[in-house]
């Protein structure tokens, strides 16, 4: 879960990482009021869950309450790479002598925590790492290790924090590391860490990403008004609908509706369709052991998508059962009806039972299955993929 800058800074305070005094405003009038209380020139920072907001015009400056309100009105209309601006963080404009970079993240390949720091902050750290690796300081730690003062001092010195401030710098490094461990973070980043005109170190931004799977350990986030949320950029109406139903779903723009099993083949099925000359309309993941209701909802998403010309279904029953899968498909056919041609394959756990349920139902009501071509283990998935491409071409061709 990504945190907003103001939420991240709230956590920073808990770990004694210095931040500028700030106000959060949700309307232009709140901006006006808050800036009225501040005696300096202010910076207005759009709160969005994505980097690069500066380049996208999400950060502005203003000299007084009136100007700030005018600027805020524009910011609240902004969309930054799909993210709406719901709130603005107001901070006094700082005189900046130097910008540093400081972050803690995971090195998953080596199972370590890594502190990354640089004397050149405020810029794209990945670019610095690539072009000037010598300007990047890296230190790895085991998950059970503490980051001691001496390591923190070493980092602070290596990135060129002035001698009289290295103890302050070290305390920030230690604070950030502690926070990373205490809150099951995947990334905590201060970019830039600034040296101000009056010789203080301040975290001028906060980028914090926590492990969703560990949020249950951190009920105190709620007490800090940090609500659990899904990371959402701009969503299509169908993506919104899928999210409400708890189904991982992405619109991808093609004409073959993908109705897969797990995420693994969900991803690779996309490649197969492409390989055989088609283009998929979506990514979707059923999750492990989906209920018939969920299966039915997945099909609703596809059938009601006007871009979808044909549906490609694949189920390899592992932890899931093919009979449940078949029940879901039948539920959909009965309750909703299928308007698009669908080719599908069912195998794995209980596949014969699934096929039997289909045949039983088909015997009672053949009309229901008029658009369904169902296969079992005997047909390779490549054949199913090719057939889906054919079906889509036939239909899209006919529709044109």
């Amino acid at each position, binding site marked *: 879960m990504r945190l907003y800058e103001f939420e991240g800074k709230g956590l920073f305070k808990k770990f004694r990482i210095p931040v500028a005094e700030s106000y959060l405003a949700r309307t232009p009038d709140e901006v006006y009021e808050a800036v009225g209380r501040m005696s300096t020139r202010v910076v207005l920072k759009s709160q969005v869950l994505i980097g690069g907001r500066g380049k996208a015009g999400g950060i502005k400056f203003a000299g007084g309450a009136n100007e700030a309100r005018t600027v805020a009105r524009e910011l609240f209309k902004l969309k930054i790479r799909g993210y709406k601006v719901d709130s603005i963080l107001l901070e006094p404009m700082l005189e900046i002598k130097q910008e540093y970079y400081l972050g803690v993240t*995971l090195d*998953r*390949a080596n*199972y*370590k*925590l890594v502190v990354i720091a640089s004397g050149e902050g405020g810029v794209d750290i*990945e670019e610095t790492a*690539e072009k000037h690796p010598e300007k990047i300081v890296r230190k790895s730690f*085991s*998950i*059970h290790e503490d980051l001691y003062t001496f390591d923190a001092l070493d980092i602070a010195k290596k990135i060129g924090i002035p001698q009289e401030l290295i103890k302050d710098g070290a305390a920030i490094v230690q604070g950030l590391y502690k926070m990373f*461990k205490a809150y*099951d973070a*995947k990334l905590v980043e201060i970019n830039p860490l600034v040296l101000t005109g009056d010789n203080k170190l301040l975290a001028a931004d906060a980028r914090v990403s926590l*492990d*969703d*799977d*560990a949020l*249950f*350990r951190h009920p105190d986030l709620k007490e800090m008004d940090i609500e659990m949320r899904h*990371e959402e950029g701009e969503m299509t109406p169908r993506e919104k609908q899928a999210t409400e139903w708890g189904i*991982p779903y*992405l619109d*991808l723009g093609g004409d073959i509706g993908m109705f*897969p*099993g*797990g*995420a*693994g*083949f*969900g*991803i*690779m099925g*996309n*490649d*197969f369709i*492409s*390989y055989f000359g088609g283009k998929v309309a979506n*990514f979707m*993941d059923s999750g*492990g052991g989906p209920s018939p209701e969920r299966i039915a909802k997945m099909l609703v998403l596809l059938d009601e998508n006007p871009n979808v010309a044909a549906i490609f279904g694949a189920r*390899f*029953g*592992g*932890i899931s059962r093919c009979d449940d899968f078949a029940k879901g498909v039948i539920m959909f056919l009965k309750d909703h009806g299928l308007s698009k041609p669908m080719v599908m394959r069912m*195998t*794995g*756990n209980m*596949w014969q039972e699934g096929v039997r349920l289909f045949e039983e139902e088909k015997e009672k009501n053949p009309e229901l299955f008029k658009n369904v071509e169902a296969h079992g*283990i005997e047909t*390779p*998935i*490549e054949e199913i*993929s090719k057939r889906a491409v054919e079906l889509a071409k036939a239909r899209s061709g006919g529709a044109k």
Partner: protein
Amino acid sequence: MAILCDKNSKVMVQGITGGAGKFHTERMLEYGTRIVGGTSPGKGGQFVCEKPAFDTVAECVEQTGADVSIIFLPARFVKEATIEAIRAGIKFVVVVPEHIPIHDMLHVREDAVKAGATVIGGNTAGVMTPGEVNLGIMPDIAFAPGRVGTVSRSGSITYYVADTLTRTGYGETTCVGLGGDPVLGSTFDEILWKFEEDDKTKAVVMCGEIGGVYEERATDTITKMKTPVLAMIGGITAPPGKRMGHAGAIVEGKMGTAQEKLDMLTEAGAHPCRTFLDIPETLKKLGV
């Protein structure tokens, strides 16, 4: 022969009295897996499929001689359960549950490395040694004993690959699911090397996917291997950076696009495959 576990493995189930634990214990037993017992703290003394449940792994190991463990527990208990198994002397642990907290897996990994134990998962479909052991949640229908090993991040891909190998007469030595979680107990290189050391495995199919970091770690090992490696990577046509269900499938910076992964593996000597049907064709060319 097989890697990681074979028909002599004495398997225990952590979480044996839970819904998933019971269901899969029964399925695994049906396949012939030698399940000797399990654990469920507080429920020691109960029986599941006539196998005894204990309160702790140490007791189970002492009473049953278990040497392999498979975990069916809620994610939040996995860290301690895995470490418990390792401390009790178990050298191979299969973590089926998904969404294990990442920091927990770092602890697990350290304990495993220290003890020389192998952990696979979380979010793995398990390990299948056809005709001997079904250790996990894989559907047995896809598998047959044979001469190709497989290792894959995803359960469904494992099934499709095995289905293809079975159908074309190659069959499998062992099929390993690494798991779909973002931080995993074992990595491709480690499993590949076990196949390299296995006489019966004549080729290995490794299936990675967009995102994650473990495919990249495998290149050195592939360079050193005599056994041929076939590589598939899912997500070649996926838009980079869009979430794909698996948390592990978010492209990480410059690393991890599917095409880059496939190129790196090919350069290291692996044989790239685009569809499952490419696999038997490649094996044929290699004379496997």
